[in-house]
C-alpha cells in the first residue's frame, strides 16, 4: 500500500520526531550521567584520599603510640629480642614499610631483621633528622611514605624513639582499587539506568505503535471508508453502502451525518434524474430518457433478436391551437393527448412499451415485439398507429370548446430500418413528415424512398440557397383589376424557380423550404427590392397612365424580424417608388402570432404610405374581430371561397359578408382565383373592389408585363 502523506504519515512523522527528541534527551541524559560519574569519581577520589590519609595517619599514630608504650621497657633493658618481636609484629601490619627503633642519639637499635645490619648506624633518609629531633609524636610525609615517629621516654628521660614508615603507595593502590570498584559500580548503575531507559523507550515505541494502530482504527480507517464512499457517490453510485458507525464520538457523528447526506444526495439525485428524464407537463419520459432507454434496448436486443418499433406522433397544425386559444389551452390539449396516447399504448402496446414527449406536440412510442414471431412488430405498430390516429382524431374539449385535431404518425422498425438509435429517430421523423405530406391524419412506415424524398428536399434547399444569385429565380406579375371598370391597377409579384435540372419547381414546394430553412429572410428583401424596381419601370414605361401598385408577399418570419420597415424604406428609396405603390401581403396567421408586434410594425409601415393587405382571408380561426385590432388596408378573400361562389350559397354568403364587413370598416376587398366571367360578374355585383385570376390575367414575366402596359387599358381581354 502506498503511504501517501496522509494522517497516518503525519502522525508517524510526529511520532518519529518525538522518538528523536526522546533519543536526544536520552543521549543528553547519558552524557550528563557520564559527566556525573566522572565528577563523583573525582570527588570520591579526593574524599577517599583525605579519608585514607586521615585513617592512615590515625592508624599510624595509634600504632606508634602503642609501640612506643611497648618498647619503653625492652629498650630500657636493651631487650633486642623483645624489640625485634614487637617490630616484626608491627611490620606484619599491612602497608607498613619499615619500623625502626633508635637510641637517644638517633642511632639505629633495631629494624626488625634478625641480623639488625644497620645497628648503631645513623638514619640517612631525608625525614630522619626531624624524626630524631622530635620531642613528641611527629608525622611526616614524603612522596610515597608516611613516617610517624615518637620518642620513647622513661619518665622525663628520652631513651630513644621509634619510626614507622607507612607505604602510601599501597594505600594509594587500595584507593585506586576502591575507585575502580566505585567506577565499576557506577558503570553498573549506569547500565541499569540504560536498561531502564531502553525499557522505557521500548514502552514508548510500543505505545507509539499502539497509538498509530488506534489512529489507524479510529481516524484513518473510518475516514478512508468515508472517502471511498464519497468517491463511489461522486462516480454516481448512490446505492453504495455508506459506512455505519455506532460510535459515540465526533467521527461517529461525521459517519452518521455522511450517511444521511449520502441518502439526501441520492434522493436529490433521484429528483434531478426524474426532472431530467421526465416531461414536466405530461409526466411522460422526455427525449433524454427515451434516448437512453432506446440505447439500452438496442444493447439488450443485440444478439437477443428483439424487434422494436418507434412511432413518432405529431399533432397536425397544433400551432394553431396555441396561436388561437393560447398556450394554456395548448398545454391542456397536450395533456389530454398524452393521456390518450398512454391509455392506447397501455392497452395495445405490449408490456415493455414506452411513451415519451419530445417537446412541442411530438410524442414518441417505443414498442417491443417478440423475437420469435417475425412481423409481429409491424402488425402491432400498424394496429397501434390506427388506433392512435382514430383516438386522437376525436374532438377534445378545452375550455368548453370542442377542438378538432388530427395526428400524423411516422413508424420505423428495428432492426429492419436502422441499427442505431440516431438513425431510427431520424427515420421516425422522416416517416412522420411523409405522413404529413400524405395529407396528415394518417400513419406511414419508413421506407428507403422516404429517405430519398427527404434527401431530395435537402438537395433542393441546398440548390435554393444560391438560386437567386444564379438567376434561376425570377419574378412574375399577376395583374390585378378593378372590378367596377376592369381597369389594370396593379400586379401581385410571384416568385418563380426555374431549376436547371428539374425545370420549374412549384412555389408551394420551394417557398415552404425557404420558409422552413429560414432562407426566406434572405430571399424576402431581395424579392422586395426587385419588385420595387420593376414597379418603378412600369411607371417609367407609361408615365401618363395612372400609376400601378405592386403587391409583395411578406412571410411571417419577415414580419417577426423588426427590420421590415427599414428594408421596405430602403427598397422604395432605391427604386424611387412612391410608398403608395407598394402593397405588402401578409397571411392572417402571420399577424395573429404576435398581434402587438404586428400592429406596431404595420402601423409604422402604413404611416409611410405603404398599404398592408391580409392574404388568404377567411381560412384562419381568428375571425373578423382581429381586423379591428390589426390596422390593414385590405383583405384578399381566399380562392377557396371564390371557387365555389357560383354553386355554394354558404360561400357566397360568407364572401358577401366579408365584403360588407370590410367596406363597413373602410377596407378594400380583393378576390383571388377568379377563373370565369360568372365569378367576375357575381363579385362585381357584390361590390367587391378588386380581383385577380386566370380569367383576368395569368402571371407574366417582367418583359411580358411591360408589353401588356403598352396596350391601352380599354383593349384588355
Amino acid at each position, binding site marked *: 500500500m502506498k503511504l501517501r502523506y496522509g494522517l497516518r504519515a503525519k502522525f508517524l512523522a510526529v511520532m518519529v520526531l518525538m522518538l528523536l527528541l526522546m533519543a536526544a534527551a536520552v543521549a543528553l541524559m547519558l552524557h550528563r550521567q557520564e559527566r556525573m560519574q566522572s565528577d563523583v569519581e573525582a570527588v570520591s577520589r579526593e574524599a577517599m584520599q583525605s579519608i585514607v590519609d586521615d585513617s592512615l595517619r590515625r592508624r599510624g599514630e595509634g600504632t606508634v603510640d602503642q609501640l612506643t608504650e611497648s618498647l619503653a621497657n625492652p629498650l630500657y633493658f*636493651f631487650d633486642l629480642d623483645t624489640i625485634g618481636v614487637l617490630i616484626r609484629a608491627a611490620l606484619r601490619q599491612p602497608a607498613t614499610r619499615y619500623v625502626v627503633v633508635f637510641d637517644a642519639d638517633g642511632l639505629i637499635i633495631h629494624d626488625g631483621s*634478625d641480623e639488625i645490619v644497620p*645497628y648503631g648506624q645513623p638514619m640517612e633518609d631525608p625525614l630522619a633528622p626531624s624524626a630524631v629531633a622530635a620531642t613528641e609524636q611527629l608525622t611526616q610525609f614524603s612522596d610515597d611514605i608516611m613516617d610517624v615517629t615518637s620518642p620513647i621516654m622513661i619518665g622525663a628521660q628520652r631513651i630513644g624513639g621509634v619510626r614507622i614508615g607507612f607505604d602510601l603507595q599501597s594505600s594509594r593502590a587500595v584507593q585506586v582499587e576502591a575507585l575502580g570498584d566505585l567506577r565499576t559500580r557506577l558503570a553498573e548503575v549506569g547500565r541499569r539506568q540504560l536498561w531502564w531507559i531502553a525499557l522505557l523507550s521500548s514502552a514508548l515505541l510500543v505505545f507509539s505503535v499502539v497509538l498509530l494502530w488506534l489512529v489507524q482504527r479510529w481516524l484513518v480507517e473510518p475516514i478512508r471508508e468515508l472517502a471511498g464512499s464519497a468517491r463511489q457517490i461522486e462516480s454516481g453510485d448512490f446505492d453504495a453502502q455508506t459506512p455505519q458507525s455506532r460510535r459515540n464520538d465526533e467521527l461517529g457523528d461525521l459517519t452518521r451525518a455522511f450517511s444521511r447526506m449520502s441518502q439526501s444526495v441520492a434522493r436529490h439525485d433521484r429528483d434531478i434524474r426524474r426532472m431530467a428524464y421526465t416531461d414536466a407537463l405530461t409526466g411522460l419520459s422526455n427525449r433524454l430518457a427515451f434516448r437512453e432507454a432506446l440505447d439500452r434496448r438496442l444493447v439488450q436486443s443485440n444478439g437477443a433478436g428483439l424487434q422494436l418499433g418507434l412511432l413518432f406522433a405529431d399533432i397536425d397544425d397544433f400551432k394553431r391551437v396555441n396561436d388561437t386559444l393560447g398556450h394554456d389551452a395548448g398545454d391542456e390539449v397536450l395533456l389530454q393527448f398524452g393521456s390518450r396516447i398512454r391509455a392506447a399504448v397501455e392497452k395495445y402496446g405490449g408490456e415493455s412499451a414506452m411513451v415519451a414527449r419530445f417537446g412541442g406536440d411530438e410524442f414518441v412510442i417505443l414498442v417491443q415485439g417478440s423475437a420469435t414471431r417475425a412481423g409481429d412488430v409491424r402488425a402491432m405498430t400498424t394496429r397501434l398507429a390506427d388506433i392512435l390516429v382514430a383516438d386522437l382524431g376525436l374532438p377534445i374539449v378545452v375550455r368548453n370548446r370542442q377542438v378538432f385535431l388530427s395526428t400524423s404518425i411516422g413508424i420505423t422498425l428495428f432492426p429492419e430500418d436502422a441499427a442505431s438509435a440516431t438513425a431510427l429517430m431520424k427515420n421516425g421523423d422522416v416517416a412522420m413528415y411523409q405522413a404529413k405530406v400524405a395529407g396528415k391524419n394518417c400513419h406511414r412506415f419508413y421506407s428507403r424512398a422516404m429517405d430519398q424524398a427527404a434527401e431530395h428536399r435537402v438537395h433542393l434547399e441546398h440548390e435554393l440557397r444560391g438560386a437567386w444569385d444564379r438567376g434561376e429565380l425570377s419574378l412574375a406579375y399577376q395583374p390585378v383589376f378593378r372590378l367596377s371598370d376592369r381597369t389594370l391597377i396593379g400586379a401581385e409579384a410571384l416568385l418563380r424557380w426555374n431549376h436547371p435540372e428539374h425545370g420549374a419547381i412549384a412555389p408551394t414546394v420551394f417557398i415552404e423550404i425557404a420558409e422552413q430553412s429560414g432562407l426566406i429572410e434572405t430571399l424576402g428583401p431581395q424579392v422586395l427590392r426587385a419588385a420595387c424596381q420593376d414597379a418603378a419601370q412600369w411607371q417609367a414605361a407609361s408615365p401618363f397612365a395612372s400609376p400601378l401598385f405592386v403587391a409583395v408577399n411578406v412571410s411571417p418570419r419577415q414580419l417577426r424580424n423588426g427590420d421590415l420597415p427599414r428594408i421596405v424604406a430602403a427598397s422604395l428609396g432605391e427604386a424611387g417608388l412612391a410608398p403608395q405603390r407598394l402593397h405588402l401581403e401578409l397571411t392572417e396567421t402571420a399577424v395573429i402570432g404576435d398581434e402587438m408586434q404586428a400592429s406596431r410594425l404595420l402601423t409604422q409601415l402604413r404611416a409611410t404610405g405603404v398599404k398592408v393587405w391580409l392574404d388568404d382571408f377567411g381560412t384562419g380561426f381568428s375571425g373578423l374581430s382581429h381586423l379591428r385590432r390589426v390596422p390593414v388596408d385590405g383583405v384578399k378573400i381566399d380562392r377557396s371561397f371564390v371557387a365555389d361562389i357560383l354553386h355554394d350559397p354558404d360561400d357566397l354568403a360568407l364572401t358577401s359578408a366579408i365584403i360588407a364587413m370590410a367596406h363597413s370598416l373602410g377596407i378594400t376587398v380583393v378576390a383571388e382565383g377568379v377563373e370565369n366571367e360568372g365569378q367576375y360578374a357575381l363579385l362585381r355585383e357584390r361590390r367587391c373592389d378588386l380581383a385577380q385570376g386566370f380569367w383576368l390575367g395569368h402571371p407574366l414575366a417582367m418583359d411580358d408585363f411591360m408589353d401588356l402596359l403598352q396596350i391601352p387599358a380599354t383593349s384588355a381581354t
Partner: protein
Amino acid sequence: MPLSGKSLSARLGTPVLVLLALLAGAGASTAAVAAPPAAVGDDVLVLGRISDDPKSHYDQLKPLLDYVVPRMASVGIREGRVLMARDPQQMASYLRRGRVDWVTETAGTAMLLRNRASARPLVLTERDGRSHYRSVFFARKDNSIRALDDMRGHSVAFQRPASTSAYFVPAAMLLDRGLRLEILLSPSDSVDAQEVGYLFARSELNIATWVHKGLVDVGVMSDLDWLNPRRLPPAFREDLVLVARSELYPRAVEMVREGLAPEVQARLSEVLLSAADDPEAGDALRQFFQTTRFLPVDTASARALDNIAAGMTRVREEVE
C-alpha cells in the same frame, strides 16, 4: 629446710590442707591437679613440673604418666596425678611434703631441688637425641677475648638467673677461675677492670645480638642454642668465635622425692628405662618434651651433677 619422712609430712600436712580446703570452699578438694594439692595415698603417683604454663604442660606430662601408672600396679600404684609448681621454691616445698613423687627438670633446677628438698636423680633424660650438653662462651672475632681469663674488665651476658646452661654453669666456671662477677645496670654501664660485668639478657637471641652488636663482650649459652639458628642467627655466628666451653652435663633429670618407697623408685626407673624400647611408649615419650629415651645415671653424669650443685651453691653465695 629439709623434712624427713613421708608419714610426718602427711601427718602435718593433712589437717592444714583440710583447713585450706575448707577455707577455699567446696569443690577444691576434689581437684586432682589444682593447687593447693590434697594429700594423696600410697597408691597414687604424682608427677610434678615447675611451670609458668600449666595448661599446655599438663598435656605434655599426662601421656607419660598414663603410660607409667598401669605398669606400676605391681608396686601398688593405682593412679597417676600431675602437679605443677610456679617456681623451684614451691616445687621444693611439694617435694619436701611428699606431695610430688616425681619431677622432671633440667640439670640446674634438679640440683636446686636436691639441695633444697633432698630429691634424688632417678634417671637421665635424653631429648632430641641429646642426653648431655655444655655451656659455651663466645665473643666477636674482632674482639681480643679468646679465653675466660681475658674477660677481666669485660662484660658477659647471661640469660636469666634460673638458667643452668646460661647462668649457673658459666657463672660457676668464672668463679672457679677466680674472677669476680659484678652485675651491670645496663649494657652501657662501665666495668671495673678487675671484674667481669654481667647482665641478664632474657633470651639467647638477646645474648647473641648484644654480643654481635658490641653491647657486651661475651655471651654464654648452651651448645644446643649455639647451633640453633633461631637463637643465634647464622649471620651472627660468622662474626663470632667460641672462647670457652664447660664440661658436658646431663640435659635433664627425672628426680624423685626423698622417701618415695624404694620398690616404687625401682619400678619407675625400670619402666622409664625400658620405655624407649616399648612402641607403646612412643607417643607419650615424644610429647614428654621430645624425650627420646631415659638413661641410668652414670658416674660421670653423677659427678657433673654434683659439680653443678656445688657451682650453684657457690654462685648463690658469691654472686647473689
